[in-house]
């Protein structure tokens, strides 16, 4: 059992407060039965599993603020990703029968390729944010992550989005800037 930096009591109190706030917001009824049942349930769960929620290597507040500023850029990338997929799905490639891949409508402008590259990110939060961002960016999905050397295997749906990730490296610099890992 490793030692926790925040101590035992701090973890239990934070877990209990967060769960009780969830309970009140989801139910909205304030009589004695519901609030009492809420206090008992939240206390039991906070005792049993508080160390899954508050850990030693947690997130500092400065990094959290920078993460909140990073999220609008990511939502914009989600919109671009969906416009890209719509273009590739609804593209009317030629309607010939007897094509070599045997399909009736053709497949459109796709050309899949698997890429691998290394980054300088090492901590858990940074790797998870990077993997989620790659999945939500136009044309790429993460396949495997290797934590000791920070290596990503990525499946790209065409050459252009794969090159935007491999050559430009805008996303790696942005995530490294959020988490202070040059």
């Amino acid at each position, binding site marked *: 059992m490793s030692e926790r930096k925040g101590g035992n009591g701090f973890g239990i109190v934070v877990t209990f407060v967060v769960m009780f706030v969830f309970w009140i*917001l*989801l139910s*909205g*009824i304030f009589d004695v039965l519901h609030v009492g049942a809420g206090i008992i349930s939240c206390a039991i769960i906070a005792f049993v599993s508080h160390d899954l929620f508050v850990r030693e290597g947690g997130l500092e507040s400065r990094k959290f603020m920078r993460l909140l500023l990073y999220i609008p850029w990511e939502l914009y990338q*989600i*919109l671009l*990703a*969906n416009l890209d*997929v*719509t273009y*590739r*799905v*609804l593209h009317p490639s030629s309607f010939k029968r007897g094509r*070599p*891949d*045997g*399909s009736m*409508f053709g*497949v*459109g402008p*796709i*050309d*899949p390729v*698997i890429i691998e590259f290394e980054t300088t990110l090492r901590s858990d939060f940074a790797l998870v944010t990077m*993997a*989620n961002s790659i*999945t*939500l960016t136009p*044309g790429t*999905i*993460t*396949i*495997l992550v290797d934590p000791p050397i920070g290596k990503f*295997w990525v*499946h790209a*749906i065409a050459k252009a989005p794969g090159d935007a990730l491999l050559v430009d490296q805008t996303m790696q610099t942005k995530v490294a800037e959020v988490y202070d890992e040059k």
Partner: protein
Amino acid sequence: MVEIIGILVAIVTIFIALGVFFMITGVIGLIRFPDFYTRLHATGKCDTLGEILIIAGLLIYHVFIYSPGADITVQLVPVKLLFLIIFILLTNPVGTHALMKAGYTTGVKPWKVGNERM
């Protein structure tokens, strides 16, 4: 007052129409693409955004039209919908990545241009 409600209903209808359009595109991609990995591309991205747009539209509808002058149980429903949006935004990409990792380490072959459809 009637004009404001009319404009709000138009905005909500636009949100819902865009959401349904993205969902239909996702399902067409599920049928049309030739390979397991490319089908995950189509559904993992289009389903997430389509869902977020539909639920966000219904959230705006609820806040402006149902809420004024009702009891607190009805007024707390937008919080539930907001939790649902955040949950879907965080967990759909993780599920997509888990399926793709299982396929890759088990040995499903990716599709190159000119191969058979699988």
